[in-house]
């Protein structure tokens, strides 16, 4: 019988990827041809009189036209928020505030399917993720913070808290609805009013949320949702009527905001970029670790600030892990995000696709070894094959800079101390992952890794009760959990 080691054998996965189409029904979601600004409880035409298109990145087809808010529109929204704060929301008994937040949560659950479809059409993420992760987690955030509204004295024992006032919130395009929930829910629970701006590529679910807020009968002006690009965001940041800025996005823009609010008494929380280290020790359950690595980097096409984009594998299991990763890569289905079987959907925009391709080129030029899945990708739309690089060093740019796409840089290590040093050797510090069967090793690593979240034997797990935020250039302040309340209150 053959007992010879055979390194040429390769498993075949073509049939695993070729399943009959199983599209979610687009008609279950209603998208208007044009969307206005949501100010003071009403949808209003922008004073700028300008609109910009939003497209489906999987087909490049136009979905709708979105209003562009200028300085005057921002001023109107902030004024509405200020009035609502002074006249209603601040004075309302906390248990009453909670009722509204619970109502938003329930209505979001009732319309979950519609939200999931629109999130997928507008942003390119697979329907499986928007259905099973984005929308339910967003609803859970509202539920969670609704519960805190009348219990703030338990969150801050023996202290009295007061709301900050009007919160200006600017959110990114990678988790449009979920980020809106992360921002709005704790702000409202603590008694603040809100002016929120979604990213210009992905405004639709935030505007749909505005419809829910209107139907939920929230007092006018408590939540205002205005759309636009960078200039609109800048107008919010620089508006004197804003008491607090909450921003999630790139480190570059985070630094601009930091400079802009210097010398004012605006408070801020910034949730910025990341270059997370995922660390596999030789005693780890390897198949589950590989699955965690796949989820860590390919979840949402890698458009995740806490994505595990650097993989460190102990040398004794390096070859085995890379082989398992390559096999797993072959079974990922890349294609139309609206198909229920799609694992990796469309890159959010052409600009982002260009950035990712630029980094893939840099990786090759730097001498790293690239491996991509052999899957076919659609001709139209913005798609990128899942990509891994081996033969990577700490000084490679693909191991240092945030790519924000489905690209993984793999390095080997020998000892625990070495990998701690390498993992911390980055300007970022948002998240990290540790894979080992040994509990004591987990605790040793978690105390030494300089990252806001450290996952052990799992990755990309989120819960409303668990705080999230960064070290170093990944930002400051925490969202989620009791910690998330801190960002929206003055403790007196």
């Amino acid at each position, binding site marked *: *019988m*053959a*007992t*010879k*080691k*055979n390194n040429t*054998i390769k*498993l*075949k*996965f*073509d*049939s*695993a990827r070729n*399943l*009959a*189409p*199983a599209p979610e029904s687009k008609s279950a979601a209603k998208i208007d041809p044009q969307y206005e600004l949501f100010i003071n409880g009403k949808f209003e035409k922008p004073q700028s009189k300008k609109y910009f298109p939003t497209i489906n990145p999987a087909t490049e087809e136009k979905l709708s036209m979105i209003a562009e808010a200028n300085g005057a529109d921002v001023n109107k929204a902030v004024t509405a928020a200020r009035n609502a704060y002074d006249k209603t929301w601040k004075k309302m008994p906390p248990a009453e505030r909670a009722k509204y937040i619970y109502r938003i949560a329930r209505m979001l659950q009732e319309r979950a399917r519609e939200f999931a479809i629109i999130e997928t059409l507008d942003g390119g993420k697979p329907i*499986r993720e928007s259905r*099973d992760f984005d929308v339910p987690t967003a609803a859970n955030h509202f539920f969670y913070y609704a519960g805190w509204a009348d219990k703030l004295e338990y969150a801050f024992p023996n202290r009295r808290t007061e709301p900050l006032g009007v919160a200006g919130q600017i959110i990114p395009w990678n988790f449009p609805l979920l980020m809106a929930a992360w921002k709005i829910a704790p702000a409202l629970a603590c008694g603040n009013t809100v002016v929120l701006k979604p990213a210009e590529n992905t405004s639709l679910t935030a505007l749909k949320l505005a419809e829910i807020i209107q139907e939920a009968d929230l007092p006018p002006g408590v939540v205002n949702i205005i759309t636009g690009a960078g200039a609109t965001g800048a107008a919010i940041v620089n508006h004197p009527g804003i008491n607090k800025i909450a921003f999630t996005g790139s480190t570059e823009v985070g630094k601009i905001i930091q400079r802009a609010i210097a010398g004012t008494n605006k408070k801020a929380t910034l949730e910025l970029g990341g270059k997370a280290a995922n660390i596999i020790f030789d*005693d*780890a*359950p*390897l*198949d*589950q*670790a590989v*699955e*965690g690595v796949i989820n860590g980097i390919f979840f949402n096409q890698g458009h995740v600030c806490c994505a595990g984009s650097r993989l460190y594998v102990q040398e004794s299991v390096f070859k085995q892990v890379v*082989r398992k990763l390559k*096999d797993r890569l072959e*079974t990922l289905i890349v294609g139309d995000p609206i198909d*229920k*079987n799609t694992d990796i959907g469309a890159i959010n925009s052409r600009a982002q696709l260009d950035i990712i391709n630029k980094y893939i080129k840099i990786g090759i030029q730097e001498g790293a070894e690239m491996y991509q899945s052999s899957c076919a990708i659609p001709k139209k739309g913005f798609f990128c094959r899942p990509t891994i690089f081996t033969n990577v060093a700490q000084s490679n740019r693909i191991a240092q800079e945030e790519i924000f796409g489905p690209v993984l840089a793999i390095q080997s290590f020998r000892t625990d101390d070495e990998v701690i040093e390498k993992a911390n050797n980055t300007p970022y510090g948002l998240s990290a992952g540790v894979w080992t*069967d040994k509990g004591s090793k987990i605790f040793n690593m978690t105390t030494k890794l300089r990252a806001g979240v450290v996952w052990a*034997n*799992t990755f990309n797990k989120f819960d409303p009760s668990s705080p999230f935020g960064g070290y170093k250039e990944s930002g400051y302040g925490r969202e989620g959990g009791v910690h998330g309340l801190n960002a929206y209150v003055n403790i007196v």
Partner: protein
Amino acid sequence: MIATKTIPDFSLSPHVDQVGIEERASRFTKRSIKNETKVNGLKLALNMIDLTTLEGKDTDGKVKQLCYKALHLHDAYPGLPTVAAICVYPSMVKVAKTALGDSGVKVAAVATAFPSGQAPRDVKIRDTKYAVQNGADEIDMVISRGKFLQGEYNFVFDEIAAIKEACGEARLKVILETGELVTYDKVRRASDIAMYAGADFIKTSTGKISPAATMPVTLVMLEAIRDFYYKTGKKIAMKPAGGISKAKLALHYLVMLNEVLGEDWMNNEWFRFGASSLANDILMQLMKQRTGVYQSANYFSID
């Protein structure tokens, strides 16, 4: 059997993370199997069934009826495949073999003091040889779970190797009875022992202990098969048995198989379902797919 020097230390078999393996297994159930993929999958699943009767009250008559069913699953749907095999006790092998003739449907016999395996080794070997002499194409043996849980891995290994020798040309399926091993770590270790000792198939359960086959347990075994294949170049077949009675669940298993071991395993030489009631549910789904409406269970023969 593989040369001694290549036999690994089974106490060092890879560990399995319970949360991780269960999450991965549930991910396969998210695949949406439609239209032609569904019809092909259902027909393939039918063709992978080891149609089973393992009762104390089994008689020649019962086994003959089951064999007829194996060859004529549902004549109202022309062109259906047959099942892969009939699985019976050694005493019924001759009857089954005669009834199936040269149809190509195999006869599998559970041997080695099935289902407990609590008998001396020479009895197990005689049991096996008796089944093979009566014409069994495949032998489903049980491992000595008591010895395994005592840590007597060499005993378990040697016993499997001895039965493999007794099988001659017949293919050997090694039943781990995962419901008695309980943890995924132990399932993985038992899988490694069985494969290195000469198993052609590894099989989850006897069907007499609950829980029988589950998706996570099957996934652990498929991953063991994959690692073994990469290490030795030798393919091992898989048979989950017990508890798989719905067509949809069978499709989930096929998705899992396809994504872990790939298309080379997607046939009844390398994968089987040990089941008695699965066939009728698949037939019902196939008829629904063809006619657009569900038919009453009364239209499908019970054997």
